[in-house]
C-alpha cells in the first residue's frame, strides 16, 4: 500500500492533527498558527487534485476505515462527483486562507486569533469530511463539526451584532440538523443500513412507505435550510454580513456549496432519479421554488444599501440557479448546475474578498461611502467588475457558461417559461452589480455634512496577500469560462453518475 491509497483518510485526519498543532504551538507563539494552516490546506488542495485525477482515470475510490467493510464499517468514497466538489471547496479554502492573514489581524481581537485558525481548520475538515464520506450518519457528524465551528467563527467578529447573527444561525442550523437526523433515523428504520451505496440498493423496495417519504422530506428541508434555499434563507444575510470578511468568504463559497452537494448526493445517489421523478415527484416543486429564489433573491439584493448584504442576497439568488438544475434534472441542466457550483464559488469568493478589502481599508461597507473608489483602489474594483461580469453571465466567463447550460437544459426539457426566468434573473443581477460599478467608477466623492468622504482619501489599494487571491479568483472566472472543455471532463462523468444512480 502506498500513500496514495490513503489519501481519503489523510484528507480528514491530517487537518485534525494540524488543528491540534495550531492550538498547541499557538499557545506559545501566535505566529505559528498561520503557516501551519496555510501548509495544511495547500497540501489538502494538492491531494484533492491528485485524487480527482486518479478517480477520473481509474474509477471510484472506496476507503474502509479500520478495514471494516461496509455495512459494518464506515467508508469514505470519492467518485467523480464529490471529487470535483472536493477540488472546488479546497481551492476556495486555499484562496481564503491566503486572504485571511491580514483580514484576521484587523477584524479579530488578538487573543482570539489562535482559536480562529483552529476553528477555521476544523471547519474545512468538517466540510471535506461531509464531501467524501460514504456513510449517511457520518455525514451528519461532519455536518455538526462544520456547523458548530461556523457558528463560532461568525461570532468571532468585533461587531456586537455578529453574536445575534450567529445565534440566529445557531437556532436555524440546529433545527436543520434536527430535521436531518430525523431523516437519517427514518431511513435507518426503513432499511437497516446507513451506508449510502447500500441505501440506494435497498430503498427501491420501500419507496411506497410513509417512513421513506417523511425521511425524504426531513432531509430535503434540513439541507435546504443549510443551503439557504429561498424560503428557508432567513439566517443567511445576517450571518454573511456580520461575520469577519475571511469567514464570509469561506462560508459563502465553501460551506453553502457543501450543503448543496449533500442535497444533490442524497436526492440523486441515495434516493435516485427513479424516486424524485416518478415515485415522489418533487422536481417540479423544486424548480418552482428555484425560480422564486432567483427572482426574489435578486430583487432583495437590489434593495440593499450595504455591499456585503447585497452580495448575501445575491447568494440566495445564485443558490436558486443551482437548485434550478436539480429541478430540471436532465443531463445538460445538471452539467450547468455543477458548473455553477464551481462558478458561483469562484465569483462570489472574489466579490466578498473585494467587500472585505474595502472594509479593511475604509472600515465601511455602505455603498454610499464608496463613491469614486476606483481612483484609490483600482485593482480591487477591476476584480469586482470581472467577477461581477461573471455573476451577470457575460461571455466568456464561467457564469455565462453555466447559465448557458442551464438554459439549454431547460429548453431540452421543454420548460420555456422557466428558461425565461433565468434570463430575467441575469438582468436583475446586472442591476445590482452595475450599481456598485457605477458608484465606484462614476460616482464623485462629495463633501457631505458628516465628512464621510475623507475615508476615500485615506484608502489605499489592498495589501498583496489580499489582492493576490482576489485577482486570482477573478482571473479564474475568465479562464474557467474560456477553457470550459477542461472542466467538462470532470463534470461530464459526475453528471452521468448522478443520473445513472450508481
Amino acid at each position, binding site marked *: *500500500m502506498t500513500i496514495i491509497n*490513503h489519501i481519503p*483518510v489523510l484528507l480528514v*485526519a491530517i487537518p485534525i492533527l494540524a488543528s491540534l498543532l495550531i492550538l498547541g504551538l499557538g499557545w506559545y507563539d501566535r505566529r505559528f498558527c498561520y503557516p501551519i494552516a496555510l501548509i495544511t490546506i495547500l497540501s489538502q488542495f494538492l491531494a484533492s487534485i491528485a485524487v480527482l485525477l486518479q478517480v477520473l482515470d481509474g474509477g471510484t475510490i472506496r476507503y474502509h476505515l479500520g*478495514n471494516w467493510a461496509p455495512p459494518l464499517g464506515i467508508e469514505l468514497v470519492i467518485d467523480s462527483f464529490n471529487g470535483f466538489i472536493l477540488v472546488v471547496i479546497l481551492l476556495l479554502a486555499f484562496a481564503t486562507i491566503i486572504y485571511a492573514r491580514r483580514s484576521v489581524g484587523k477584524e479579530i481581537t488578538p487573543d*482570539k486569533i489562535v482559536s480562529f485558525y483552529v476553528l477555521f481548520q476544523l471547519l474545512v475538515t468538517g466540510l471535506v469530511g461531509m464531501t467524501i464520506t460514504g456513510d449517511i450518519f457520518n455525514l451528519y457528524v461532519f455536518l455538526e463539526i462544520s456547523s458548530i465551528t461556523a457558528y463560532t467563527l461568525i461570532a468571532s467578529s468585533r461587531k456586537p451584532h455578529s453574536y445575534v447573527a450567529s445565534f440566529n444561525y445557531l437556532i436555524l442550523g440546529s433545527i436543520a440538523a434536527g430535521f436531518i437526523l430525523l431523516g437519517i433515523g427514518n431511513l435507518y428504520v426503513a432499511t437497516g443500513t446507513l451506508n449510502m451505496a447500500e441505501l440506494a440498493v435497498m430503498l427501491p423496495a420501500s419507496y411506497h412507505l410513509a417512513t421513506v417519504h417523511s425521511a425524504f422530506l426531513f432531509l430535503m428541508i434540513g439541507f435546504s435550510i443549510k443551503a439557504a434555499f429561498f424560503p428557508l434563507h432567513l439566517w443567511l444575510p445576517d450571518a454573511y454580513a456580520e461575520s469577519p470578511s475571511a469567514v464570509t468568504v469561506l462560508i459563502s463559497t465553501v460551506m453553502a456549496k457543501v450543503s448543496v452537494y449533500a442535497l444533490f448526493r442524497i436526492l440523486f445517489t441515495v434516493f435516485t432519479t427513479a424516486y424524485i421523478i416518478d415515485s415522489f415527484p418533487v422536481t417540479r416543486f423544486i424548480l418552482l421554488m428555484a425560480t422564486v429564489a432567483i427572482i426574489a433573491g435578486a430583487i432583495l439584493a437590489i434593495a440593499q444599501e450595504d455591499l456585503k448584504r447585497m452580495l448575501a442576497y445575491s447568494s440566495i439568488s445564485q443558490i436558486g440557479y443551482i437548485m434550478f438544475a436539480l429541478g430540471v434534472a436532465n443531463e445538460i441542466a445538471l452539467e450547468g448546475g455543477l458548473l455553477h457550483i464551481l462558478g458561483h464559488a469562484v465569483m462570489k469568493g472574489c466579490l466578498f474578498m473585494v467587500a472585505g478589502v474595502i472594509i479593511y481599508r475604509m472600515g465601511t461597507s455602505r455603498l454610499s461611502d464608496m463613491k469614486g473608489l476606483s481612483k484609490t483602489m483600482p485593482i480591487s474594483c477591476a476584480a469586482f467588475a470581472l467577477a461581477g461580469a461573471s455573476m451577470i453571465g457575460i461571455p466568456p466567463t464561467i457564469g455565462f457558461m453555466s447559465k448557458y447550460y442551464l438554459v439549454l437544459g431547460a429548453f431540452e426539457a421543454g420548460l420555456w417559461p422557466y428558461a425565461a426566468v433565468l434570463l430575467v434573473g441575469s438582468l436583475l443581477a446586472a442591476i445590482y452589480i452595475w450599481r456598485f460599478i457605477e458608484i465606484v467608477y462614476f460616482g464623485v466623492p462629495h463633501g457631505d455634512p458628516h465628512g464621510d468622504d475623507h475615508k476615500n482619501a485615506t484608502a489605499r489599494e489592498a495589501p498583496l496577500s489580499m489582492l493576490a487571491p482576489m485577482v486570482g479568483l477573478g482571473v479564474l472566472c475568465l479562464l474557467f469560462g474560456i477553457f470550459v472543455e477542461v472542466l467538462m471532463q470532470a463534470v461530464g462523468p459526475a453528471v452521468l453518475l448522478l443520473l445513472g444512480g450508481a
Partner: protein
Amino acid sequence: MMENVVIRTVSRLAVPFIQIFALYVIVHGASGAGGGFQGGVVFAASFILMIIAFGMPNVRRRIDNRGIMWLSVIGIAIYAGIGFLALLMGGNFLEYAAIEAALGIPHLHGILIDLVEAGIGIAVMAAMVSIIFDIAGNGEESS
C-alpha cells in the same frame, strides 16, 4: 456555599467513586456497552459536583485552562496517533489488526481499543470541563 457541610462531605465521598466509575466505563468500551465519550462525560460530571460543592476557584486551582487545553490535545493525539500507527504498519486508518500483526503481540488490539477510548475520554472530559468553566465562570474570560 462554604457553610453547607452535608453537600461538601457527600461530594468529597462521591467524587472518587464517580471517577472510578468513569474509568470503568471507558475501559469497558472495548468489550461491551460503554466507551470514551460516555466515560469522559461521567468524569466531567465529577468536576461539576466539585464546582457545586467547593466553588469555582477551588476547582480552578486543580485544573486550569492550560491544563484543559493540553488534555484535549493529548486526548485527540492519542486517538489520531494510533490511527496513524496503523497506517505506518501497512493497514488502513485505525486498523488495529495491522498493528497487532506487525508487532506480533497477541490480543494487542484490545489494548489499542482501550487506548483509543482513553484518548477520546480525556478529550471529552477536557471539553466538558471547559464548557462548564465558560458557562459557570461568572463572566470572566477563560479562553
